[in-house]
Structures are given as C-alpha cells and as structure tokens.
C-alpha cells in the first residue's frame, strides 16, 4: 500500500530562476516526512513535482521504484491536499469524498458505502449530505483528508493544510493527522513552514533554504545537532555569538567570540567541518543557558539583566552582554525563584559545552 519516493538529482527551473537544485532524497514507504522551510524555499515546488503538476527540469522522481516521467497527476499513485483544501463547493460532503471513485465510474451505492466508511474514519459520521460551505474549518480539513484517502493513494501529499486554522485547532489536527497516518499506514509528505508541526508529527524532516535541502534527519537531530547555521537559526530559538576557531579537538571546538572564549561541540551532521582559523558561530539555546555556579569553570558570560517576561510555566529573561549586539535570551522553568533577580543586576551565565553548537559561518534564517 505504501510506496517509497525517490528524488534523483532533481532540478526545477522557472526561466532563469532555480526553484529546486540538486535534490537527492529518499522517503521511505509508510513514513511521515516533512519539508520545512521559509516561504519561497522551494518546498511547494517539490511537492508539485511529486504530484505531477510540474515537470522537473532535470532528474527523476520515482514512486514505488517506478519513474514518474510523462505520467500526469491523474495517473500517479499520489493524492494532494491543497493549502486551501480545494474542496468542490458545488458538491455535498459525500460527493466530494468519493469524487475519485466517481471519475472511475464506481456506482452510487458503492460510493455511498465508501463515503460512510471514510466519514467514520474522520469522525464526521452522518454529515455526508451537507454542503461543504456548511462545515467548520476543522471539519473541512478532515473532509479534504477523506477525499484524498478515497483515491487510495500510496503517497499522500499535504501542502500546509493547517495554516488557515487557529492555533488550538491546529494543535489538535496535528495529533489527528498523525493518528490517521498510523492507521492507514501510507507515506505522508507534509509541507510546512511551522517547525512545531514538522517536529511533532514527522518521522523525518528535510529543512530547505533557497531550493536546496540543508539537512535531513529526525526531529531531535535537527534540533539538537543542526547541520548548518541556517538550520540552527530557523528551527527553534538560539543565541548566536560570532568568533574565530582556536582549536578543534575530538568533536569539540574552542571559539574566541566577541563575548569571550566558548567551548562547543561540532555536530557530526555539519555540512562544513570546522578548521582552525575559520570564522564560526556558536549557538546556545535559551533553555540551555542558566546562571553560573561557582564550580563552572568555562563558557561563563558576564551579563546584565534588562528585562523579564513571565509566560506562566516559563520565565524569559533578557540580558545585555558586552560584545553582543542583540540581547541574550534565557528561558527558565518557573520554580518560584523570580524574586531573587533584579533588573540591572550583573550576573554570570553559563551553557554546557555539550549543549553549545559550533558551526562554520554561513547564511542564517531571516528574523
């Protein structure tokens, strides 16, 4: 039922503009795979190429081992869920859901049966007679999924289908999508610019920038061991310090930065290995920072508290650090210790070398 998808050296160009370059990727059958990147990075282009609406300028796309060149979208074993869902407004819910069967010539009784089954699956039993316009946003979402599943695709492609929903519904739909994927067991390829969606749902994530895949990996790898400054800055928050590599030794790099000498790990996933004398970035996540204790010998940073924000379970504390143009941010779990801090107080911060990441200089994500 589920097929793997291979992209071999795929290039997609529009005139002189290169929307996707040298994409080399294998998505395993039954996997929940996400493309994550800012808008305009080429992720939707790749999805349209897989679904057959776009022809790659170069390279091959294989689904289930079969080359898809010359096969139109209506004959590919894929189904696409559109960003705006593209439900047919003039049809009822059940007509929408069984459209794929209708065009195959399946008779109405059988289609009704299939529609009822799928309505059950998406938890909308008995709603088949409604018009699409009568449904709420979340319900439409589910109808779109059911409509795509009715085509019995081997690969389901989803183009930011949750972006129109409000936050709460979005979070709910994440869980639901994941559970539907586990139940039907087919390959899901999901496009999003929301890292939360990508990280919570996916088995694997490809982070894209300017038509290039920067890194492929599971959620924890992407987050804890980013392969490039772009991934580090796009996925999650980071404090960033620029400096020169003093030494690289056993997966750890010593970098002299504007805020002092910092020791940080060099991830194995890094696309460019660090060499002594290179310019490098040291990334420290807000939740990895904490107030220094007397026994902390290294990675100490002198800082002045400038602001605090209370978020309930977290405190966000902002510091001014000599040598850093931007305020440094620290997230700490609310343990009731807020009264010990004062604005203007000078403190020392620390981030363990294992939680700091050093990467060769490269493009960053836009703020």
């Amino acid at each position, binding site marked *: 039922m589920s097929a793997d998808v291979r992209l071999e050296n795929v290039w997609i160009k529009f005139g002189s503009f290169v929307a996707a370059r040298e994409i080399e990727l294998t998505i395993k059958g039954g996997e929940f795979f996400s493309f994550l990147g800012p808008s305009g990075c080429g992720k939707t282009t790749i999805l349209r190429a897989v*679904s*057959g*609406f776009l022809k790659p300028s170069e390279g091959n796309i294989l689904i289930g081992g079969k080359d898809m060149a010359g096969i*139109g*979208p*209506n*004959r590919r074993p*894929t*189904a*696409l869920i*559109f*960003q*705006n869902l*593209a*439900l*047919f407004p*003039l049809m009822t819910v059940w007509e929408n859901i069984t*459209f*794929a069967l*209708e*065009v*195959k010539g399946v008779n109405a009784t059988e289609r009704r049966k299939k529609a009822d089954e799928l309505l059950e699956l998406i938890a909308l039993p008995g709603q088949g007679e409604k*018009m699409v*316009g*009568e*449904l*709420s946003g979340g319900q439409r979402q589910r109808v779109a999924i059911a*409509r*795509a599943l*009715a*085509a019995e695709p081997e690969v389901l492609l989803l183009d930011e289908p949750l972006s129109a929903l409000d936050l709460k519904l979005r979070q709910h739909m994440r869980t639901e999508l994941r559970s539907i994927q586990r139940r039907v067991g087919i390959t899901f390829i999901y496009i999003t610019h929301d890292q939360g969606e990508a990280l919570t749902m996916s088995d694997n994530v490809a982070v894209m920038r300017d038509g290039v895949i920067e890194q492929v990996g599971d959620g924890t790898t992407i987050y804890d061991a980013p392969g490039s400054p772009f991934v580090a800055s796009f996925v999650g928050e980071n404090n960033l310090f620029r400096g020169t590599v003093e030494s690289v030794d056993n997966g750890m790099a010593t970098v002299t930065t504007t805020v002092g000498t910092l020791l940080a790990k060099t991830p194995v996933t890094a696309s460019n290995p660090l060499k002594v004398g290179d310019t490098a970035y040291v990334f420290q996540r807000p939740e990895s920072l904490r107030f220094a204790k007397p026994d902390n010998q290294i990675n100490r940073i002198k800082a002045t508290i400038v602001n605090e924000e209370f978020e309930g379970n977290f405190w966000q504390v902002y510091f001014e650090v000599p040598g850093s143009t931007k305020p440094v941010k620290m997230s700490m779990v609310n343990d009731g210790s807020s009264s010990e801090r004062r604005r203007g107080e000078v403190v020392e911060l620390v981030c363990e070398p294992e939680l700091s990441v050093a990467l060769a200089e490269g493009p960053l994500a836009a703020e």
Partner: protein
Amino acid sequence: MITDRLGKYAVLLFVVMFFAYLFGPLIIMSITAFNSADFPRVSPWDCFSVEWFDVLVNDDKLMDGLRNSLIIGIGVVALSVPIGLAGALMLMQISPRVRPWYYTIVVSPILIPGVVLGISTLIFWDRLGAMFNANYESIFYDGIFLTIVGQTTFISAYSMLVFISRLQRFDPALEEAALDLGASHVQTFRKILLPFLKPAIGSAAVLAFLASFENYNTTVFTITSESTLTTVLASKVRYGINPSISALAVTIVVLTLFAAAIMEIKKRRTDAFEKAISKAVIEGTDALSKLGRKSNRLIDPAFAMIIVIFLAGLGTAYYSGTVGVDECKTSVKEAKKLETQRRVDERRKKQMFEGAQPGTQQAAPNTTAPSTGKAKGTEGYQGIFAPTNLESQVKGDSGAANDAATDDAPAKGTEGYQGIFAPTNLESQVKGEESSN
C-alpha cells in the same frame, strides 16, 4: 452651515432632475399608450383605452418581425454562448506573449460600430456566395442567417466578458484537485469547471438574447429582405407614428419591472440562505435547516403578492380600458365636432368683420386639438388605473423589498444568475443592450 444645506438641496435637486430625465420620457410614452387618440400624445386626453394593445397584437408585420427576432435571438444564443465560453477559456490558457493580441482581436467587435459589423458581414457572405456561385435562395443571402452571424460577432464578445469575470473567481486548485484525484481532463471540465460556470452560462444567454433582440444597427444591414421587430419598429416610427408603439413600450417596461422584481427576490433569497449558512457554521449548530425554512416562508408570500398585484392591476386596467370606451369616444367626437363648428363660426364672423382683407387671417391648422371637449366621465378612472399608478405600485413593492433586503443582506456576489440586476454586472449588460449602435 447655510451653504452646506444649500449644497445638499442642490445635489438632491440634481438627482431628482436626473431621474426625471431618465424616466420622464418613458412615463409620458407609457401614458400615451392608453389615450384613444390616433396620435401618441398626453394632451389633449381623449379617452382611457387599451385598444392600442389590440392593434399591437393584430399588427401582422410587427408580429412577423417579432417571430424573426425570436428565431434570431435563439440562434445568437446558441452560437455566442459557446463561442464566448471558448474565447474565455482560451484567454486563460494562451501564452502571455500572444495574450494582448488575442484580447485586442476578440474584444474589438465591441468597439467597432454596429453598422460597420453589419456591412462587413453582408459583404463577406455575399462575396463568398459569389465565389461558390451560390443562388440567391442559399444561405449566403439569407437575411436571418446573416443577422445571426453578424450579431454573433460582437455578442460573443459580451458573453466572453461574462465568462471571464466568472472565471476570475475560479480557484484553479479545484481543477488540479480533480486531476489529482484521477479525473481526466474532460471529466474535470465537465464535473468541475462547467458546474462552476453554470450561472455565467445562464446570464450570458440572457444577455445575448436581449442584445440580439434589441439590436438595430447591425441588423438593418444584414436582414436584407426579411424583417425583425426592431427594423419594423424603426420603419414604423420613421414613417408615421401611432400609439400602438407606445403600447409595445408599456409592455416592455412592465415586463422589465416584473423581471427586476423577481430577480431582486431571488437575490434576497440566496443572500438570506448564505447568511443562514454562515450563521450555522459560526454557531456550529444545526440551526441551518430551521433558518432556511424560515427564509423561504418569509419570501414566498411577498413573491405571491407581487404576482397577485400585477395580475389584478393588469385585469382592472384592461377591464376599465374596454368598458365604456365607445361612449367616451362618441362624446369626444361630438365635443370635437362642436369645437370645430364653433371655430368655423368664429372664422366666419371674423371674415365678415375683416371682409376687406381676405386671406390674411389663416386659422391655425390642427395644431391644438380642443381641450374643452375632454370627457369628464373617464377622469375618475384615470386616477386609479393610469399606467403610471400601476407602475409605481409594482415599483413601490420592489422598493420596499429593497429596503428590507439591505438590512440583512450585505451586497455579496450571489451565485444565482450572477445577478443580472446587480449593479456590477450592469455595465456589460448595458453594453449588450446598446450593442445595436
């Protein structure tokens, strides 16, 4: 403050004058249809009568023209709607480099004067017929065929504009979704695009028919030896006018008002339905069915009322126009006779006085008909059953409907017939109707 108020009154006065300019001629013409006088006029008023409607219906030439107009209208609809649809679909797909040229060519018939289109169609088929040595009975010289072809040239462009404006609201993702779900291109066209275009097909057909029905400038050249309603009308109006033409105008005005009222009601209904849907979605309840029923019930009586008032008005007008007309006419004739007699007497007296200079005093011939001879008996009827009254009744009704509609119906694009009466559509509508020029 005072200048402000003055300005306001000036604007209001201007608006009133504008609408008077717009409706005055139609109202006056409508009134003349009910005057039994042989010449279409308001004053002097002879008798209230509907005899001109009878004359209208029994005018063979006019009815013949009407039949041809209907045939031509149907032919033009059958040709120009598919052509307009194809033209619009083509525009969406044509490569961007060719598009401006293509657009210029297919839109040009709207801007080319109607007479030029008529002439070029006539000559083209005439020459073509000559090339094939066709005889004069053949299609190349057939007035009805030529008129259909000539009108189709520009009416297709109107219907194309209707389709374009509808297609601009089409979400291409729907087409892709259908393809992605395994539909073939033809299936996608039939199951997705055509249903979406259905309202536009309806309004393009109505528009095409009206444009064809009203066309004069092109038709007058292409019709050759046949005739249409407009060409018959034009020759009638040019060579002597009589009130049966006013009667035709009244018929058209009443039908228009009637159609406008129905469209307005339909629009209100769809608006109310849409509102009910959005409300049901927002509240997440099943209130929809209830609301839907309620809105149906709200509107149906109004609809029935309009029909009843319309028919009742028509009936009474007809009744009052047939009863007692003969007596009235006789009395008018008598009054006229008396008046003429009086004048003759007067002239005689004058001539006797001024017998020395004969011929200098010419009696003003037939310029003013007697106003004293007005039959008093009809005046009572007039007030109640005059066509203007009937009209304003119907208008008043649709007006009230409007007032109510705006309260709860935001002017959203309706799906119904694409709002033939909606202001945004008027432009193309209007162009269609003026196409004859």
